[in-house]
């Protein structure tokens, strides 16, 4: 009996080879490739006066040095604006190699190609670039003040301003019995995968075919942009994402300059070329996120019901804006969370600064929005003296209101409409999980020992599985093994396991018989990419549909071969079997063979498919009009709009009265991502997200000085949580299936990180009674706030 795989917490099939050290990450490829080092700008803003490479030419092992002037015309154009938007009226993107001006520390200026990376760095060190420094624009408010411009022709530093409204928020607030106004900021951080970026390219001059490996979240789009900008037919360019050492959003950005430079150099030099980013480069040349300055006006009734919400924020997108307005649009819609808000206005400016560009990092604008909304609800509760959970309950959208359409436009250009969720049930579970009602006695007991503890909670809704589409291909080999391919790539999410579970169920085969390939355009050329918690929703459903097509084909062939009705057959244990007659069965592999009418036999199995083997109907063509040879199927999943996952976190913290050090005592998560394909993998996604949320709340921040120098561009100074900083997490799941897709799944990849700053800020504030309106917060910053508040123990 084949047991159902979807829903089972099976161990990952990816693990053994990764554990044995047999993974193939980008820098493991191309051991004989020439290697690239990039000369990067040391200035945040400067004019390039001169580039002198003469001292580098003599370095033994040097292959080539390229500046902007050396590039072909197409590569001298600015990089594409990937996601245009009507409000993005003044978009600016960078050049592949800087032309005349640099706009952030780390911007690529010169490419050096050499025998190996050591030599490439030797030569890069000898390249002399003469700069004329210009005033650096750093920070939201400096940019908004526009004393200096990042780009001379955009004097106010504003790339876009966008406003969305429902109802009439200013009027609703003015008429409300209670009103509050405040500011809530989040600092800049970054995805920071353990493996940086990397590109390897090989040009086969005989076949005139380019193969690019990139550590990317979107190989099909990298292929498209490489083919477009190198002016090659798509069919002559392959792009493969090998094993990827984490992405968390930063690797959805493309094309990086190196993704064009390396393939171009490989063709030009007729030799494999590779670029592997080092950690310092990752800090100053790979994109950041999160930094926003946000203002809130809120009006509410005496029960805490929100009557109007007016939000304005500044989004710092850095020196260039290749990814459009995705992050601030997500903030401006998703901050509404699980709450019914009928009068809402949001306005934002997306600002240029002389810093690394901003594109999504796990959560993508939601952690900022969640911090804004959840802190707002906490303020309302505090103002009215009502329990924080009660204020939330009173504002929740109710399950019978689903689908709930806010009347806003989401990041995919589609209606912002929640499809499912039961927020009251989630809150009830969370309160039980953290023992919310028992906290005051825990607080009192701690206080009796001179300890200060506090509790907080935060809720979020996450739009997941955004379109436009993904596809799946499922093929049964004559061996009976099932090959599955989808185009999006994998950065550790366990796609090979989860997708195999889906295909195994549909085809009635053991999990071990299914092999999944992701992120290889040679296997599946049409795809969008891995972002927005969309892989399980999009590729999962596409593979489900493709496997269903294969199932139907297998059953039809078996019905003919066994001379029974399709309705009397089942697919089980790798065979099509007559129900109730285990002996009347035909293996999937045999069905695969006879699905392909043959003229030539090469083994006994193939003999069954040859033209004299069976008394086929002589009046019917071997391959009918609506048939195709082979036991395989391709299908696509393309939803009308996103599906919305949701969840709530709660935590208890202790603040040291003497040092203001924050320790997380308990952390609870209730999560609703619909049907769970693999609970173990979902749990892993949540726990990993929580760890990043803790990092974002207490440790991680990009520390730029006023000159645009990143002061903490190393793991010694940019602090990410170790095992000692991440609390034990207790989790519970609510499964409200999405009505939008056949599997009923909603995304799970990003959720864990979203409420981190909101929930930890709430708990710290509850512990020490000082307002926390900016995250992350360090012990010294918290201490200073307590000093200002005149708290004892802080002298």
């Amino acid at each position, binding site marked *: 009996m084949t047991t159902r795989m979807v829903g089972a917490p099976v161990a990952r099939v990816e693990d053994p080879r990764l554990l044995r050290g047999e993974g193939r990450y980008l820098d493991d490829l191309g051991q004989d490739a020439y290697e690239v080092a990039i000369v990067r700008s040391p200035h945040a803003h400067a004019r390039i006066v001169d580039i002198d490479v003469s001292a580098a030419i*003599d370095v033994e092992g040097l292959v080539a040095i390229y500046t902007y002037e050396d590039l072909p015309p197409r590569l001298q154009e600015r990089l594409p604006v990937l996601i245009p938007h009507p409000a993005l009226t003044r978009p600016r993107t960078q050049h592949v190699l800087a032309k005349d001006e640099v706009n952030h520390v780390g911007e690529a200026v010169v490419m050096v190609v050499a025998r190996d990376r050591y030599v490439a760095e030797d030569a890069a060190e000898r390249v002399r670039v003469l700069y004329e420094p210009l005033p650096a624009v750093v920070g939201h408010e400096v940019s908004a003040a526009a004393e200096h411009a990042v780009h001379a022709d955009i004097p106010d530093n504003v790339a876009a301003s966008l406003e969305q409204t429902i109802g009439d928020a200013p009027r609703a607030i003015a008429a409300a019995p209670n009103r509050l106004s405040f500011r809530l900021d989040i600092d800049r951080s970054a995805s920071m995968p353990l493996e940086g970026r990397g590109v390897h390219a090989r040009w086969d001059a005989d076949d005139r075919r380019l193969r690019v490996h990139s550590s990317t979240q979107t190989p099909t789009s990298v292929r498209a942009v490489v083919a477009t900008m190198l002016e090659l037919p798509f069919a002559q360019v392959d792009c493969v994402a090998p094993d990827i050492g984490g992405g968390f959003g930063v690797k959805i950005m493309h094309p990086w300059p190196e993704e064009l430079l390396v393939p171009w150099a490989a063709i030009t030099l007729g030799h494999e070329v590779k670029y592997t980013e080092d950690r310092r480069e990752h800090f100053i040349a790979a994109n950041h996120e999160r930094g926003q300055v946000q203002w809130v006006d809120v009006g509410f009734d005496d029960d805490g019901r929100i009557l109007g919400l007016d939000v304005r924020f500044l989004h710092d997108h850095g020196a260039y804006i290749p990814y459009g307005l995705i992050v601030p649009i997500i903030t401006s819609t998703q901050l509404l969370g699980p709450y019914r808000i009928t009068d809402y206005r949001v306005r934002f400016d997306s600002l240029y600064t002389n810093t690394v560009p901003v594109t999504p990092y796990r959560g993508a604008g939601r952690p900022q929005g969640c911090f804004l909304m959840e802190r707002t609800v906490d303020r309302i509760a505090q103002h009215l003296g009502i329990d924080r959970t009660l204020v939330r309950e009173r504002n929740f959208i109710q399950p019978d209101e689903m689908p709930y359409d806010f009347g806003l436009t989401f990041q995919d250009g589609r209606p912002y409409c929640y499809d499912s969720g039961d927020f009251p049930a989630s809150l009830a579970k969370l309160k039980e999980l953290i023992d919310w009602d028992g906290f005051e006695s825990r607080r009192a007991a701690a206080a009796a020992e001179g300890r200060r503890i506090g509790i907080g909670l935060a809720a979020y809704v996450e739009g997941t599985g955004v379109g436009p589409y993904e596809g799946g291909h499922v093929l049964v080999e004559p061996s009976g093994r099932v090959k599955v391919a989808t185009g999006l790539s994998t950065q*550790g999410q366990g796609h090979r396991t989860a997708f195999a579970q889906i295909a195994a169920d549909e085809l009635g085969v053991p999990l071990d018989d299914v092999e999944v390939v992701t992120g290889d355009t040679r296997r599946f050329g049409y795809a969008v990419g891995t972002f927005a918690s969309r892989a399980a929703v999009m590729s999962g459903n596409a593979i489900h549909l493709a496997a269903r097509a294969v199932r139907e084909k297998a059953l039809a062939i078996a019905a003919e071969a066994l001379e029974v009705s399709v309705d009397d057959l089942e697919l089980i244990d790798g065979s099509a079997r007559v129900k109730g007659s285990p002996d009347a069965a035909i293996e999937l592999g045999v069905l695969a063979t006879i699905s392909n009418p043959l003229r030539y036999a090469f083994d006994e199995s193939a003999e069954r498919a040859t033209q004299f083997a069976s008394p086929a109907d002589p009046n019917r063509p071997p391959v009918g009009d609506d048939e195709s040879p082979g036991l395989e199927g391709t299908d696509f999943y393309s939803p009308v709009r996103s599906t919305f996952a949701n969840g709530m976190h709660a935590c208890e913290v202790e603040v040291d009265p003497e040092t203001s050090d924050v320790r997380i005592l308990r952390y609870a998560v209730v999560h609703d991502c619909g049907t769970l394909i693999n609970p173990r993998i979902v749990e892993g996604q949540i726990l990993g997200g929580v760890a990043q949320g803790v990092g974002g709340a207490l440790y991680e921040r990009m520390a730029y000085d006023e000159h645009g120098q990143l002061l903490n561009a190393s793991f010694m100074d940019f602090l990410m949580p170790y095992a000692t900083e991440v609390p034990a997490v207790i989790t519970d799941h609510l499964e409200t299936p999405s009505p939008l897709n056949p599997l009923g799944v909603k995304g799970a990849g990003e959720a864990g990180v979203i409420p981190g700053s909101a929930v930890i800020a709430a708990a710290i504030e509850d512990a020490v009674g000082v307002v926390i309106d900016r995250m992350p917060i360090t012990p010294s910053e918290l201490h200073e706030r307590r000093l200002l508040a005149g708290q004892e123990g802080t002298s």
Partner: protein
Amino acid sequence: MSEVLHEVRVVVNGVPASARVEARRLLSDFLRHDLGLTGTHVGCEHGVCGACTVLLDGAPVRACLTLAVAVDGHELTTIEGLAASDGTLHPIQRAFQDHHGLQCGFCTPGFVLTAAGFLADEPSPDTEAIREAMSGNLCRCTGYAGILAAVAQASEELAASGADPRARHRPERGEAGEGPR
């Protein structure tokens, strides 16, 4: 300008190996690019993340902070040296799979070798000792819970079998072999 080359001879995973390298060559690059042992990963090149951890004469070291010329004549164990020759996972490796102790797998070799060195020193650690011992390595994916649970399981198994945690795994008869795919 040409750097002088030095012969570096080592025993890696029980097998003698050698290469001629510049004095500045990092042990991580020597292992990865001269000996082709790419299971040792490089995450920061400044000794903080621990992804490049290997065993040098049985003790964990950061290969990105060690020069290849400094290990001439010494013994090294890398991630490739733990699973049995038929591919059967070492108890630490299997525990990582059992407890979902890895996602992208990039930091994993460093964690596994750190655990091997730690369990050789401290065969029966408690939970806090495990957390402390694993707190010199960064993982960006898992949130560490699975890693800590894995080390706990492996410590019990290894203590029971008496095997040296740093030695190549020798499967018991009947243990499911799982060869390279």
